[in-house]
Structure formats: C-alpha cells, structure tokens
C-alpha cells in the first residue's frame, strides 16, 4: 500500500519533471506561435515584378486619367495619373476602389434570360439569337420605331453605336438619362443657338458664383473641379456658394449664401435686374426681346420681391450683384449638386444670362459657348425602307421621364422592345415605382449592365458588360468643363467573367439581324470600329492615351437670345404636401448613380449618414420638434414613407430635410445594398413644361417621431 503510493507518486513526479526539462514544450510553444503567423485562411498575396499601366476611369463622366499598378500583370491598385489634363494625379474614392468592381458580388457573370421571376444563365450564342429573333419580330410587325434605348450620360462611340443601331433598325426613340451635359446643351441651344454647349473656366475665374453646383461633390468632371477649387486658394480667387445646405462645397467656399430650395432662378434674375438697373452690364449681341426682358426682370425680380421668395436679403442681393460686376474675371455656375436631376431650364438660362450680361461669354475665366463638333466619324449608315420610314418618325416624347409617363399612360405598348445601356433608371429616376411599372409595360427589355442592379433585375435578357477595367472605349469628359478631353479606357485585365464590351455585343446582334443593320455595323470587333470612327484622334488616343479636342476660350462673342426669359416662364414648385421640404443631398463618398458604390466607399460613410441599415436624415434642430438627435422618425411624402434616424445639423436651413442619395439599393451585395432607403422612392418628378426636365428639386414632407 504505502510502497505503491510512494512509487506511484515518485513515478508521476519523475515523469512530470522529465517532460518539463525536455525540449518538447519549448518546441511546441514555438511551433504554435509560428502557426499563428501563417494561418492558412489569411491570404498571402503573390509577389512579383511591379509595372504601371495608364488608362481612363469611366465610372462617372469625369473621365480621369488613372495609373494601374500591377504585380505580374495582376492589378493591385488604381491611382490618379499625374499630368493628365483632367485630374492631374487627383482621384476620387470611387476610382481608387475601382478594382473592387471586378469582383463585385452583384456582377452578372454571363448572359442571363429571365424565366418566370428568376434569371438563368445562357450562352452568348443563345442570348444573341434570342434577342435578334425578338427584334426581328418587332421589325417585321412594321413598327421598328417601337424599339427604344435608354442610355446613361456619357458620350463616346459605344453610345453612338447604339444610336446607329437604332437608326439602321428604324427607330428615333433614343433617350438619355438626365445629365449635366444635356442640361447645358439645352441651355446653350435656348440662349445661343442649337449645337452649342457651355463650359466654365473655373481654373481662371477670380470669382465663382455657384448656384448650388457641387463643385466638390461630383459636379461635372469631379476631379477637374476639385483641382480648380483647390488651386483657387493659391490664386486668391473666391467661391460664393448659394445653397440651402452647408454642403462640403459651401463649407469649403469663401462665402455660403443660404437660399430657399428651388429659388435659384429667382436670385439669378434678381441679380440680372440689379445689373440692368445700375447699368453695370456689358452690352453685347442681345436679341429676342432684350428690352422686354430688361423690363420684366426689373419689375418682377426687384430685390425686395426676390428677398421674399429666396430668403436672401435685398441689400445682400444688391451687394452681390455689384461684387459680381466689379470682379475682374467672375463666372456664374448653374446646376445644383451634380447638375443633372432636379434641375430646370429657367434656372440654367437665368444663371447663364448673368454671365452674358456681365460680358463673360468666351472670356478667360468666364463661360465658354462651345460647339463641340463630334470627334467621331461614322461612315454613312445603310438604310432600308423600314429604316427610312423610322428616320422620318417623330420621337414618341422628349425626355426619359416623359417616356416613363407615356409608357404608363397608354393601354397598348408604346415600345415593344427596350435597350438599357449604362443606366439604372429603376434606381436613379424619381418615383422608382413608376419606372418599374413602365418597364413592365415593355414586352422585351434588354439590359447591358455589368451588375445585377435594379434595372437589370427589371429586364428580360441581360447581355453583361465588361467593366471599364476589362474593355477598350473612348470616354469624353462630361459637361461643364472649359475644355473637352477624350480619354482612352484600356483593358487592364481580360474579362474576369463571360462578359463582353457592349459594342461587341451590339455588333454581334447586328450581324445576327443581317441586312442593312449588319451592313451598318460591318466590323468584326468593337475595337476595330473604334479605331475607324476615332479617325483623326486615334493616333493621339492610342499613343498618349488621350486627346484634347477643345481648349481655351472660343473665338468671338456669341449672341444671346432673350425670348425664353422675356416670356417670364413660371418657376417650378415642389410637389406633395407637408410642412417640411425633403431635398436629396449628395455625398461624394456615395455613388449616386452607377455603378453603385464599392464596399470601400460605403465604409467611409459617416455614422451620421448611415447607421447599421438605417439611413440618417439631416434636419435643423429648430424644425425638429419632438424629435431626438440620433433618434428614430417616420418620414412621409406623397410618394411614400420611410423609417429614418435623425441627425441634428445646424448647417441645413430650417424647414428642410436632407437625405443622402446612393443608399437603399436592393440588389445582392451585402456590403453595399440593403442599407437605408433610396431617396428617389420618396420624390416624384415634376416635369418642366417645354424643357421636359424633371425639375423636382425636392418634395414636401412630414417628419414625426417613430
């Protein structure tokens, strides 16, 4: 007994001591720590030679030059391209995060056909024959004009190729999403004659009077504006920002002039009135009833009247007008925020008229009235009878928003087939319910989207587009810039999935349709097509990666036609009902348009904008009766209702609710979608008579405790 215990215990102790002194413990400890430093589930990026390739970003109309860093031909980082004429090295967070789009969880990985309410993958051959078959039916039914196209802002040969396809097909029904560039062209056409557009020489102006233009929230060519704005401080130039909210642009400006939403036109005309009254204007080639205009504005837009409408003090209006007239190189800039949606012609025209009266047309640092004859030279399209007939046809309606309403209004299909290219109207147009309804009215919708976004989901067939990193394309800068630069987007990688350049998809379709349509698109590949149609600038594009199409102040001073404003068109009013006014606010960190934001971009968004899956709206504490900062509330407009969180912001005008754009996506990407609400669900369009623009700068609303 005793012996046993003793020997047993002795043995135990011996063993313990033995293991303790042996190297086993030390070895195991060391190995385990080394293991934690090489966990198999922690990726180890492959190393290799570093190289850089230049391209151009086409995520927005900015068309910035980018430099893509590669390791063994594997892209690892996108950076701004130094000395590029648009952005000189600067780059926005969407462009930097561009590589995330390649592997976006919502990417369409191959052609898709809708079967019931689900999509099933099909081969390109199947897809092409399916679509061409449907299109043939439409054409043979004798109504080729019932094929429509909705395309996103940007110009370039792919969009042109789409238009050409519709021409040859026999349809005039081409519609562009609202864009700053189109708004400026319409303004130029109204004031200075068709075929023109307007650019603002922000780089040289010494006083920029911005009517809400989001010069650092993505207006026009975003990075070009950033550069000009930042250089302004070194040039001792001034920026006055007129906006209902202390946007980043307003915060960065030398002066913020709060104004009641939607009354920018009244202020602009008020300033015109002062210039005329004080005889501070520079006479020019003014026609179309200049005197009538002078009389009307001095009567209807006298400072006191304007103060009542805009909330800007009459005295300040006078001072502002004088400051503008006295400045050496002033320029007035229209286009709230990004200048495309919620805009109206009256406002654009009024602001541009201010430039005309101040004698700032085609002057350094002023507003350039440019005639950008397209650099694209397509050969004559071959047309058959049907095409000729279609060419004769009138376009069904003026604007994409009117198209949507018409589709919903009429019993029998206005369109039998619809192409959607580079656009997400089911997300970005106001009153998305209305848009989705309209899409249901079209028997056959073909999307060319890279991502399974809201519009792609509403279509019958998807011919997935390769992203800007996977394809060749010419990308001209969007509106607002004083110069036009065409950049060449080059493929940085082979398509990751079974996608095509939309140009190639279109050529395949044309070939399949045969006849004159095939003849009109008689290229083997889109790349060939581009090389041909880019004609004169192709060499520059392929060698330097870009071509500057126009630069510097155009010759001579254009005339200005006052007939539109002399008729004193009515200002657009916000629709709906409620004691507050909901306006969309724009946040450079969120892609308001397409493609939707990346995970990185969403990560940077403040918790005062997005909190978990709740959207946070801004309101001045003065108007937030009964509400708690960071508390829940219910936001109601005539369009709908949303549960939101509230952020007390002294930087927003009392009575105004600000809701960020770019949230509330409903597709399948847990990092980006399913967060907050889409402000476009809550705002309905208000079409401006004549221009057809959706002029809804906001909508009346109520906000109450949840």
């Amino acid at each position: 007994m005793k012996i046993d215990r003793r020997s047993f215990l002795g043995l135990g102790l011996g063993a313990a001591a033995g293991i303790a002194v042996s190297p086993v413990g030390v070895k195991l400890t060391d190995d385990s720590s080394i293991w934690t430093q090489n966990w198999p589930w922690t990726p180890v990026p492959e190393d290799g030679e570093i190289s850089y390739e230049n391209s151009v970003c086409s995520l927005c109309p900015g068309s910035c030059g980018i430099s893509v860093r590669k390791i063994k031909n594997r892209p690892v980082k996108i950076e701004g391209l130094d000395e590029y004429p648009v952005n000189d090295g600067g780059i926005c967070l969407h462009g930097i995060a561009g590589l995330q789009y390649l592997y976006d969880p919502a990417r369409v990985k191959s052609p898709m056909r809708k079967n019931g309410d689900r999509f099933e993958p099909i081969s390109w051959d199947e897809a092409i024959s399916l679509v061409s078959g449907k299109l043939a039916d439409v054409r043979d039914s004798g109504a080729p004009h019932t094929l429509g196209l909705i395309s996103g802002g940007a110009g370039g040969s792919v969009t042109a190729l789409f238009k050409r396809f519709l021409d040859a097909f026999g349809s005039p029904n081409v519609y562009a999403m609202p864009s700053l560039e189109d708004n400026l062209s319409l303004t130029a056409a109204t004031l200075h004659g068709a075929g023109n557009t307007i650019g603002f020489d922000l780089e040289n102006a010494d006083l920029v009077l911005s009517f809400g233009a989001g010069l650092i929230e993505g207006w026009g060519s975003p990075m070009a504006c950033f550069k000009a704005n930042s250089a302004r401080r070194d040039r001792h130039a001034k920026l006055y920002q007129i906006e209902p909210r202390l946007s980043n642009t307003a915060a960065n400006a030398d002066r913020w002039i709060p104004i009641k939403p939607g009354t920018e036109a009244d202020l602009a005309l008020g300033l015109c009135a002062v210039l005329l009254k004080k005889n501070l204007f520079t006479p020019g080639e003014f026609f179309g009833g200049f005197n009538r205009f002078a009389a009307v504005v001095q009567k209807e837009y006298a400072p006191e009247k304007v103060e009542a409408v805009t909330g800007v003090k009459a005295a300040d209006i006078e001072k502002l007008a004088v400051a503008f007239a006295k400045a050496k190189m002033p320029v007035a800039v229209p286009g709230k925020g990004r200048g495309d949606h919620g805009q109206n012609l009256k406002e654009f025209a009024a602001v541009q008229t201010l430039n005309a009266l101040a004698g700032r047309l085609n002057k350094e640092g002023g507003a350039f009235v440019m005639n950008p004859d397209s650099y694209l030279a397509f050969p004559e399209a071959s047309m058959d009878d049907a095409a000729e007939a279609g060419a004769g046809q009138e376009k069904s309606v003026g604007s994409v928003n009117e198209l949507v309403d018409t589709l919903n209004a009429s019993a029998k299909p206005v369109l039998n087939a619809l192409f959607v290219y580079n656009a997400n109207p089911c997300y970005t147009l106001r009153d998305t319910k209305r848009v989705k309804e309209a899409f249901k009215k079209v028997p056959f919708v073909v999307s060319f989207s890279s991502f399974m976004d809201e519009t792609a989901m509403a279509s019958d067939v998807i011919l997935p587009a390769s992203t800007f990193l996977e394809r060749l394309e010419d990308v001209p800068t969007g509106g607002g810039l004083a110069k036009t630069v065409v950049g060449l987007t080059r493929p940085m990688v082979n398509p990751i999935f079974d996608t095509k350049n939309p140009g190639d998809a279109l050529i395949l379709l044309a070939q399949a349709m045969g006849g004159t349509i095939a003849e009109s698109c008689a290229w083997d590949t889109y790349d060939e097509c581009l090389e041909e149609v880019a004609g004169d600038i192709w060499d520059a594009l392929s060698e330097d990666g870009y071509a500057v199409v126009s630069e510097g102040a155009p010759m001579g001073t254009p005339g200005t036609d006052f007939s539109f404003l002399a008729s004193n068109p009515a200002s657009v009013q916000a629709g709906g009902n409620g004691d507050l006014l909901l306006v969309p606010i724009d946040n450079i960190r969120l892609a308001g348009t397409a493609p939707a934001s990346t995970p990185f971009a969403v990560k940077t968004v403040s918790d005062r904008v997005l909190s978990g899956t709740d959207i946070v709206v801004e309101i001045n504490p003065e108007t937030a009766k009964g509400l708690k900062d960071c508390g829940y509330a219910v936001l109601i407009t005539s369009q709908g209702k949303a549960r939101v969180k509230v952020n007390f912001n002294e930087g927003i005008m009392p009575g105004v609710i600000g809701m960020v754009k770019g949230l509330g996506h409903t597709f399948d990407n847990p990092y980006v979608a399913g967060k907050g609400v889409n402000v476009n669900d809550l705002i309905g369009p208000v079409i401006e008579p004549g221009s057809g623009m959706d002029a809804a700068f906001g909508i009346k609303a109520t906000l109450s405790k949840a």
Partner: protein
Amino acid sequence: MIQNTKAHKFGMVIDLDKCTGCGSCMVSCMAENNVPFKEDESRKKDSITWMRVYKLTNGKSFPDTEVVYMPRPCQHCSGLGDHGHSPCVSVCPATATDYGYDTGIVSQIYTRCFGCRYCMGACPYHARYFNWWDPTWPEGMESYLSPNVSPRMRGVVEKCSFCYHRYQLAREKAYVEEREIEENEYQTACTTACPADAIIFGDLNNPAHQVHQIVKPDPHPDPRNHKVVGKSRNPKVFRLLERLGTNTKVYYMSEREWVRKAGDSYLDGEWDEVKNHHGSSSSHG
C-alpha cells in the same frame, strides 16, 4: 536620437482649408495597405480606418455654422522630449511597435504583436485598430491584394505606417543608384491620392522639403512646456493635442482661428495667451 542630422524625420502637414472631406485619402490607404472590410462598417469603433477623416463644426447655429474636415492618420509621435518614446511604443511589452530613429516612423510588427491592446489605450488619437475579426474578402477579391503589405491576421493591432513599404522601395532604388532619396520619390498613398492637394509629406529635417518650409519646426523645446519639441513657427500651423507632449509629426494648417483652437484643450482664457505664441524663437506677438 533624431538630433543626428543624417536621420530623416518624415512628417506631414495637412491644409484643412483645402481638405474637402472627400475621403480619397481613406480609400487610397485601404487599397494601398490591404485593409479589410465587413458588411457593417457603420460601427466606427470597430472599423479599421488607418486614415480617418473627422468632421468638426464651430458649434454655431444656422447660418453661422462652419464645418472643417480633419484627416487623421497615425501621428507618428516622437514622444516626450522628442526621444522616440511614443505613447504606444513605450508601452508595448513585446516591442511589436517600434520607433525608427532613422525615419521617425512608428512601425507595427503584426507577426510579433500578441494583441494585448495596451498601445491602443495609450494612443489618444485612436489611430490604432484591433483585428477583432478574421479578415475575409468576397470570392475572388483577394486577387487585388498587394504583396507589399502583408494582410493581418485576427487578434493583432494595425495602424498607419506612413506607407513604409513605399519608403523601402524608394530607398532601395536610391541605394542602388548611390544617392539620397528625392522628396517626390517617397510620398504616401493618401498624399498622392488627395485631389485637393491638401496633404504635403516629406522630411521635416530637410530644409529643402516643402513640409519643412511650411512647418518651420522649432528645434528647441517650447519654453512654456518643455515636453513639447518641434513646435511650428508658422502661426497658421498647429498639432493635435500638442500640449500632451506626444510631439506628433503630423501638422495641421488653417487660416481659421476656431479650427486651430479645436486641436487642443484649453482652460478658460488660456487660448488668448497662447494663440500668438509660436515656439521659442518666435517673433510673433
């Protein structure tokens, strides 16, 4: 120590009047340094952002409100008396974060860090982030990760490195060509991305560098507070929490007095005494 003139002392000055709050610096940093992301990044206290842009307001009510954005990378503190004992470095028990006397850069060694998080408690700028989660990427996205910065594993701390790998690349090149590295050869990813040119990066010890010319760092301790070294002699330039003696190498610049005041805490009346004092050899009032 840093006093040895051959040593670099890399630092930054950020022009807050130029900063637009656009966030390019944040994303450029994430993309450059393989920073991971989660489905919900709106809980900012569990969201890895080596560069974080804070929004400050002057606290006035409409329409006198003003807003400024303040980008905050790691401040690369030189520590009390500028001796390299940064708040974080001095407390790390495992020497997993260290002060580079040749560069002034505060390093972070992920494979040595054992995750005690003492350094995080010690850093008043919240520049340090802990990997609470295993970093993961959606299918395929690993393919864009850069080999120049090793992805971190769960359970360790990470932070801004002043893009040290960029310094290494520049240094190697210069070494091979037997010369000093040029100012433009070593620039951080946030600096180069900034579309407003708000960030200026360089060697605070090198009078030829822009950052030195703007900051004009005072080599002598601040007579009013001997913990403070390298105070800027430019009246528009200030540092975050300078009075703590962390001696940061990230400087900020603004024309606006309320912004400069927002960089530190002051007792009633103190600001008016110190606002015109700019270092020992300062001429200003």
